């Protein structure tokens, strides 16, 4: 059980990250994406197709070349959608911000916080 001081400190960091320019840009880009029905449909379609193909492969079924080509075409279409490109570019900046901020968190610890979180989730 975390102490109240630790919980507050973690919350303060999260709120500061949320208020950072890169996060605000990302959240806006994400909201724009979600509000665009065409972009949202494309992404949902890609995810559903991916899950279907992976599921069939895991059941030992060999996929047709045409099915893989259709998936790659859809994936390319999704990645070339301007709103999705903007959101993904914004997310890359968020990751850079988070990585930089994590260095400040890691310094007093002498280890990588994120790596230990991942170790705990494995």
């Amino acid at each position, binding site marked *: 059980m*975390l102490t109240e*001081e*630790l*919980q507050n*400190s*973690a*919350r*303060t*960091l*999260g*709120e*500061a*990250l*949320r*208020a*950072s320019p890169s*996060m*605000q840009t*990302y*959240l*806006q880009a*994400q*909201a724009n994406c*979600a509000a665009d029905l065409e972009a949202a449909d494309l992404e949902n379609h890609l995810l559903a197709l991916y899950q279907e193909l992976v599921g069939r492969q895991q059941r030992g079924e060999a996929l047709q070349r045409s099915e893989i080509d259709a998936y790659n075409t859809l994936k390319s279409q999704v990645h070339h959608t301007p709103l999705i490109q903007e959101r993904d570019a914004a*997310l890359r900046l*968020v*990751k850079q*911000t*988070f*990585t930089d*901020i*994590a*260095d*400040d*968190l*890691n*310094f*007093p*610890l002498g*280890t*990588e*916080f*994120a*790596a*230990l*979180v*991942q*170790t*705990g*989730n494995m």
Partner: protein
Amino acid sequence: MDIQLNPIPVTAAVKADPRQAAQALGRLLRQTPEYEAFLKELNVVNNHPAVQKISTQMRSHQNALRWSPKNASEHETALTRLETELETMPVIQDYRLAEEAVCRMFAEVDTIISQAAGVPFATNAKRSGCGCGG
């Protein structure tokens, strides 16, 4: 990544400097009994002669596998035996328990950061490809 929250205006209440907030959190985590115990066990492991001996042997087999794959199965068998030997040592088991406690605590902290930030923190902040401390 599932973002359910909408952008929020930046208010004075959330204008803490993220670098300072991260440093403050790092200092607090460093002072917890769980992290102190983890560092203590890590120090014990790093200075334990038997652990050092086994680690050296393991590195030797790993290098052999990397640079001359001849007799690979012999090296793999030796590595498995040494890993088992290492993991059953009481000093390593104590270290693993301390590591687990820290990992659990960090995961709880990460959940709070991520919920407040609006995106998963650790997942997006990871720099290296490997864990630490073992």
